């Protein structure tokens, strides 16, 4: 089922949680609402489910207006951040709850619950109480409970938030696989960009109650539409500069970039740590003299921190372990840094 969010706004007292948000979720897609806390992503998810009412705007399921329908008539599977399992009921009773309150025939409930428990890999644990399960298991009970009533869509609020790192990675790969099998329209909320990019087909980046950018993960990552998206999706080096003759002037460097601004515009350049190259000698490309202040080679990339003393600029640079071995960098080394790629935004581009 498709979801259409049509000019939704919501205020909580003096706080504008959502500001005229429009979004379409196509049938069968797996969409991530990504943003920092307070960006309105959870509020949007709750409005889709009917757990919160919008001040203005409409929600449509398959082009049918459901704005004023209560959650129990919407047939939506919702998984809460805290799982919200019924503590006094066993795993079996939790999963069967939705079927019972909808008065499914008794004979159908048991096989359905057992199938679901098998699907979430909890077969054999149906008699346990929620208190006797691990975090990951509880999460999967919550998921089975939400799926039991054959919902038209699945909404997940920070589904991996409360789990430890290893379980988290496992569970998100599993969710991706599950979605590939059952193709239910799914929206999940997360503040972790890595999670959003790994699991979702579509990523929607939110900030201050507005959508900053929506698109396929690769497209969003490669071409951030706003400084906020640039900044939010991982580490980035930020430069203040000026546009001159179609190039941006940063410190001693003149760099070409895609896009155009009027000469003399004050602009901000964004360069990701892996988009900076480092060398002992000045390269043919425009480069910046700097001094190495910190080296951390433990991990899949070597993280180097340098300071360009002339301009008072500190930069983070990621290089491959091979390149690191080749350069033999130490603290205090004098190096030349050259950008391979840069994105430029001027304050006039976006009214914030």
């Amino acid at each position: 089922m498709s979801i259409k969010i049509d000019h939704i706004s919501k205020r909580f007292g003096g706080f504008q949680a959502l500001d005229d948000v429009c979004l379409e979720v196509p049938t069968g897609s797996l969409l991530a609402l990504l943003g920092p806390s307070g960006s309105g992503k959870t509020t949007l998810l709750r409005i889709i489910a009917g757990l919160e009412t919008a001040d203005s705007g409409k929600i449509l399921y398959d082009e049918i207006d459901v704005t004023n329908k209560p959650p129990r008539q919407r047939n939506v599977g919702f998984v809460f951040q805290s799982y919200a399992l019924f503590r006094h009921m066993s795993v079996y009773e939790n999963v069967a709850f939705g079927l019972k309150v909808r008065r499914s025939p008794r004979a159908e409930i048991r096989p359905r619950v057992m199938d679901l428990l098998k699907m979430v890999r909890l077969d054999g644990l149906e008699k346990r109480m929620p208190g006797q399960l691990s975090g990951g298991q509880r999460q999967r009970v919550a998921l089975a409970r939400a799926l039991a009533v054959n919902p038209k869509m699945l909404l997940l609020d920070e589904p991996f938030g409360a789990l430890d790192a290893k379980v988290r990675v496992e569970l998100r790969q599993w969710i991706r696989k599950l979605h590939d099998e059952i193709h239910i329209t799914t929206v999940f909320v997360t503040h972790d960009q890595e999670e959003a990019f790994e699991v979702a087909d579509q990523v929607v980046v939110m900030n201050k109650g507005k959508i900053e950018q929506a698109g396929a993960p690769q497209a969003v990552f490669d071409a951030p539409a706003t400084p906020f998206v640039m900044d939010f999706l991982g580490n980035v080096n930020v430069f203040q500069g000026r546009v001159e003759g179609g190039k941006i002037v940063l410190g001693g460097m003149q760099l070409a970039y895609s896009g155009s601004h009027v000469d003399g515009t004050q602009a901000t350049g964004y360069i990701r740590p892996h988009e900076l190259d480092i060398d002992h000698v000045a390269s043919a490309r425009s480069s910046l003299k700097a001094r190495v202040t910190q080296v951390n080679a433990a991990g899949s990339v070597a993280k180097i921190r340098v300071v360009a003393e002339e301009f008072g600029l500190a930069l983070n640079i990621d290089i491959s372990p091979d390149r690191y071995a080749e350069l033999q960098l130490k603290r205090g080394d004098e190096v030349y840094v050259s950008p391979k790629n840069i994105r430029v935004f001027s304050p006039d581009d976006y009214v914030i």
Partner: protein
Amino acid sequence: MASLANRRVLPGFRMSVSFTLMYLAVLIVVPLFAVLLRASSMTTADFVRAVWTPQARAAYALTFGASLIAAVIDVGLGLLLAWVLVRYDFPGKRILDSLIDLPFALPTAVAGLVYSSLYAPKGWMGQFLVPLGIHAAYSRLAVVVVLVFIGLPFVVRALEPVLESLDPELEEAAACLGASRWTTVWCVVIPHLYPAILTGFALTLARGIGEYGSVVFVSGNKPFQTEIAPYLIVQKLEAFQYKEATAIATVLLAASFALLIVINFLERQRARHAT
């Protein structure tokens, strides 16, 4: 004990345990033992003769019966009151909230006097109720009514914090699964409140069994009809029948203790399931 105490990081274990034990001994165990000791100086036959008279049996039935009925009513009323106080905002909520505690602070004799004058045949309420056949003063009904008043705050105060901390997501989850409001309250909210309800019920019941001051004013204390067991004890004392008085006290003590143990057991069993 020393090795146990030494293993603790924070100091004060030994001191707090000694203080607690001393307090328990001086205030609770010694007086209770005095009662038992006094009663045990009687022969079994004398004891039975003292505690099992028709008059005493009627008094026990009234004390336990009225307390039980009052506790059940209080659970219903208290649940409603706590729900309204926690879930809704309305003008005068603060005042209502502090009024709940009034039965704690009011001397019970005052409550008894007020109720008896209200419901007496010539009282404000009594003048309308008595012609309808409702005798809410100097009757068994009067005992129940005044015990409901005395016990209500126990239930409300036991439920309020639990209701407040109840995760609203539980109710939302039930709603998303298609449960009606009524089903949600009955199948999700109430079971989560069960331990608090049981605690409130136990406290109200215990209070009802022990209540004296207010009841003696409203009941009329007619033997076989509206006489409660604590009043019987006072009567025996006034007639200098100390042994008989302590014998009846022993029965009350044993019954209350047994009741509380049963309720405690139920609470524990519940707690083991829900963690």
